[in-house]
Every structure is written in C-alpha cells, then in structure tokens.
C-alpha cells in the first residue's frame, strides 16, 4: 500500500530524513521507534504533506500513486490520516463544525451526499463515546484547552470518523494514563483491517502490548537502522538504543524525555 524509497527531506537547509526506505502492505501495523529528534515526526509530517519540510529526493507511492506531488487535502481524501503529536488548538472553530466539515469533504470526494447537522451529531456522539470523550467536547473550539490526553483521544476520534486507508499515529500514546491508553488502543484496534495500514510512532512498548505490530523499525539520525518483528520492541525496552550503535547524545536526549 505505502512504498517509501530513499526519502530525503530537510527543513531550513538541515537534512532531517536521510534516505528512508519502507514498505507497508494493506492490513499491516508498523511501529517506528527511535530517539528524540531522529526524524519520526518529520517523516509523519512529510507523508501528510506539510510544506514546512522540503523533500529533496526519493519517492513515495500510495497504492501506486505518487503521493508527494499531491496537495495535503488530496492526500487526505485519498485516505492518508495523521494523528498529530501536538494537535493544534483552533479557538473559534468548534470541534463539531470542524469534524463535520472534514467528513463532508471526504463524502463529497467520494460522491456521497453530505451529512446534515443532525445526522452528523448522531454519528459524532457515538464515536465520541467510543473514545470516551464527553460529547461536550464537540462544542468547544478545536482542541481548545484540551488536556494532552484529551487531544490524543480527539485525534483518534477523527481517525474513526474519517476511516483512512493509511493511519499515521505520531505518539498518540504519549501523555495518556492507563485507562486512556486502553481507550486509544481499542480505537486503533478498531481501525485495524485487511484494507488499511497503520504506521505508529511510539517510544513505549506498553502501547505495543495492546496493539501488536507486524513490524518494528528503529529510526536514528534520519535513517532506519534496524527492522524486526515485535520482539525488537521488547529488546529496545530492555537494552535501549546504544547496542545499535546510536550516538550517545541521541540516547541521552531520548532517555531524558
């Protein structure tokens, strides 16, 4: 489904991604781990189309289509979804209005009729229950004043509403208490299906207890330095990154977080 070949990207002249290669098939769950600053979020943002990052080389295709030449909104309409590590707060736009506009943009793209306010409200209430968010959050500004965990649940809620083909989850498990972690994991598992791929960025094995990945990759200094099965995550948990020959300062930064 997703094929990344020799992807290089930089920001303000600094190369962050230095040749990423990754193949993800439909139905698979891949986890990406790695020290702070290694480029995990950059990869996620580049896939979603953030123009703050410049792609300098490489190729990315989604189901055979060149993804990089598409605008962000078109990637989203083709099924790319990014759960942000730091979801932005947008006061003045209600969460409900935002989600309905997004759902209707997708429906419009698929040639389906738009959902009216009442229909959408019904759907949104159900899904908000699924991620254990009080429906009162729908009335608030997008992420406005949400706690860290509430923001993450709000991201999963959007994934459930938009039903993407490729869900990229950037540290959706960070800052969650144990109950919330379970809620988010259940949400992600609900997304899991034969025709969908999931790419999860995480620092913790504990998420992988709930969502068992098919493949685990270690990203360090802009490259994937090691790939393996779920047992790689366990090994990283035990031994850290140093045994992989990752620079000491990276490791220090990672454990300080």
């Amino acid at each position, binding site marked *: 489904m997703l094929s990344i070949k020799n992807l290089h990207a930089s920001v303000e002249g600094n190369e962050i991604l230095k040749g990423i290669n990754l193949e993800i098939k439909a139905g698979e769950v891949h986890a990406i781990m790695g020290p702070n600053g290694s480029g995990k979020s950059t990869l996620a943002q580049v896939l979603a189309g953030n123009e703050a990052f410049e792609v300098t080389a490489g190729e990315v295709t989604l189901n055979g289509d060149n993804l990089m030449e598409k605008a962000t909104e078109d990637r989203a309409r083709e099924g790319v*979804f990014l759960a*942000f590590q730091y979801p932005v707060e*947008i006061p003045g*736009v209600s969460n409900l209005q935002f989600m309905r506009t997004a759902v209707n943009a997708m429906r419009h793209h698929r040639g389906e009729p738009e959902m009216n306010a009442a229909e959408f409200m019904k759907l949104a209430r159900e899904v908000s229950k699924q991620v254990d968010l009080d429906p009162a959050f729908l009335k608030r500004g997008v992420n406005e004043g949400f706690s860290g965990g509430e923001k993450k649940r709000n991201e999963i809620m959007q994934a459930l509403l938009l039903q993407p083909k490729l869900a990229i989850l950037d540290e959706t498990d960070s800052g969650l208490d144990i109950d919330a972690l379970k809620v988010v994991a259940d949400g992600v598992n609900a997304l899991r299906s034969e025709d969908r791929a999931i790419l999860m960025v995480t620092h913790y094995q504990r998420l992988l207890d709930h969502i068992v990945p098919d493949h685990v990759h270690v990203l360090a200094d802009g490259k994937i330095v090691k790939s393996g099965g779920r047992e790689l995550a366990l090994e990283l948990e035990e031994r850290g990154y140093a045994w992989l020959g990752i620079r000491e300062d990276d490791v220090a930064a990672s454990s300080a977080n």
Partner: protein
Amino acid sequence: MKPAPTLLSSAFLQPAGQALPEPLLALRRQRGAALVDMPLPTRKTENWKYSSKYLKLTDEIAGSLPATGKTGSALAVPGYKVVFINGVMVPEASEYPDLNDILIQRFGDLSEAEANELAERLDSTLDTRTVQFAGLNSARFEDGLLIRLKPNAVLDKPLFIIHEVTASTSGSAFPRVFVDAGRNSQITLVEEYFSSGQEAALVNTVTEFNLADGANVTNIRLNMDGENVQHIGATGVRQQRNSRFESHCMGFGGPLRRHDLQVWLEGEGAECKLNGVVVTQGSQHYDNHTTIEHVAAHCNSEETYRNIAADKSHAVFNGRIHIHKDAQKSNANMNNKNLLLSTGAEIDTKPELEIYADDVKCAHGATIGQLDEESLFYLVSRGIGRREANVLLTMAFINELVAQIPVDAVKDTMQTRLNQFFDQAFQEV
C-alpha cells in the same frame, strides 16, 4: 505660506426637502452657514490621515437623492421596523406600535414645540470639532426619526431602522436618528444601512442616544452600503448614572467607509460595551474612530474591535479613551485585533489613551497578524479544501463577536454574509 485648504463645495450646502417644522429648518440653515468655510480633511488632518485619500466629494454626488424608490431590506426583521429611503421615512413600509410610553415619530410630524426642543438637542452628543461631517448631516437632513422612551418603558421587540440608499442616480442622503431613553427604559435598535443601484453616492448619517439613569440601550449597526457609495456616519451617546449602552457595529468595506462613535460616560456607574467587526477586500476601505469619554467616576468601558483586510484593502481603527480628572475608579478595557489576509492589504491601528485621574484601571492591546499556517495545515490534513479552511479560520477570528449579537436573525444573517464575503475573498486560494 500654507496652501489654502480645499473647502467643501458649495454644491453640498443646498438642502432639499422643506417638509420639516420651522425650528428644524432654522437649525439646518444655521449649520449650513457654519460649513461655508469647512476645509476638507487631508492627510495632514490627524483624524483623517489614513482615510482622506478615499474621500471623493465631487459635485456629481452633492445633490439630494429623491425620496422615492422600492424598499427591500437584506434582513429578516423579527421586530418592528421603520423604513427610510434616502433619509426620508416611508410610512407605508413601516410597522411600529403606537404606545403611550414609547413615542416613535418622524421629524416631519413633530409639533412646533417638539421640534424646538429637538433642535436644541441635535448634535449635543457629538464633539463636532472632531466629527466634522456631523455638521453636514445637520445642514442637510430632510427627515429623521425621534424615539422617546418614558421612564421604565420597555420596547418588547427590537426596532429595525432600515436605511436604504437608492444609488440608481448619483446623489447624497442624510439619515438622522435621535433617541431619548428615559430612566430605566430599555430598547434594542438595529440600524441597517444598505444600497440599491450602482451609481456613485454619499450617505452621511448621524445617530444620537441619550440614556437617562438606569436606561439600557442596545444598538446594532450594520454598514452594508453599496460598492459605489461612500458612507460617513457618526453615533453619539450620552450616558447618565448606571445606564448601560451596548453596541455591535458590523462593517463591510466600500470605496470610503467612516464611522465615528463617541460615548460620554457622564453619570457614575454608567457602562458601555462596544463591539466592532470590519471586513474589507479588493480595494475597499473602512475606518472606525471611537472615543470613550470617562467623565464621571466608577464607570466601565469595554471595547473589542476586529478588522480583517484582504487583497489590497485598507482598514483603520483609532480608539481613544479619555479619562477625565474626576473619573476615579474608571475601568477601561480596549482590545483591537487585526488579521491581514494578504501582503497587499493594510491595517492601521492606533490606541490613544489620555488619563488625568490617578486611580483607574485601563488596559489596551492591539495586534496585527496573519492566518496561522499550522492551523491551516491541520484543517487541510483532514481533507478540508484550502478555500474552506481559510474561510473557517478567518471566521474563527470574529466568531466570538458575531456570536454576541443579541438578535438571532441578525446574527444568522451576518454569519451567512461573512461566510460569503470570505468565500469570495479566498476564491483564488
């Protein structure tokens, strides 16, 4: 030697419409005589420095527009209404109650004694040295609306004053409103200014409010005049003890848009809340000048204005707060935020604080910014189109103020209008 100033053309000093009681005609003559040597503002004129270049008072638009035409408001009117065409009331199109304690009269219908009293009071809420064009209205008005609320009178529904300018020919109109709100009385007044026709025209308005002790007045002003109509309006407010004045000014840009709002807090415990939203696009202009005079002690003022300028348009906000020496324990809050939607747009904002009392709380803030790229990326990453995302974020900048408009039908209409306005502003995104 200074060059001689350009004076207001004498063509502007020919009032039409003689159907007014003699005291008002006399007032008009007197005000007209005072304008004979009125210099037109230039960019050296402090309170017109950003806007004088938009002022085009050509002889072509000097004559009065005829007091006839079709009437059609852009608003649903869930209340009473009084319709004016080119500053002259149209009784057939108006619907308002005949009450003992709330008197609604056109100037033309006033008795000699009533007109005398009114003539004494017209212009008394405005400093005509800084609101130069109020004098022009006083020299030219052909009719007007006098609203008097007796003590404790409460108007049960909003009163809409629909001011239509028929710009199917070139000319001028001079709408005039005077409100006298007695002790503890209450009224919500919606003023809608709009135009039909495409010719060049001038609409020059004055609206005055006098609030006696405990009176509560809400004024919604919708400036939606046509694309070739210059609008120069003024609102003056005098407030006595414990009175409350709330205003919501919604302004859409044009070739020239100017609104002066002056509030005099003269009785202790008086309070005003002034909200304003301005949107401009293309080569449009809009200039709000507000003045809050804290004359008495223990008064509160709260002012929130937002400007959004797209394309090559130009918005101006000048907010003056003047705290007089006896106005101890004044509480004044002024906030102006501005959004530039293009690099070619211009916004000038200037807070002016003059404080002569020592025990006051006075806060002000002004910012100019652009749409947040990170927010935009978040929205489009959910499949929302760029144009729609821009509209959502721009609306977000003013939603809070639109939501405060206390008449639902007006709020809904404004929401729709603003959405359309921004959708057009972002058509090339």
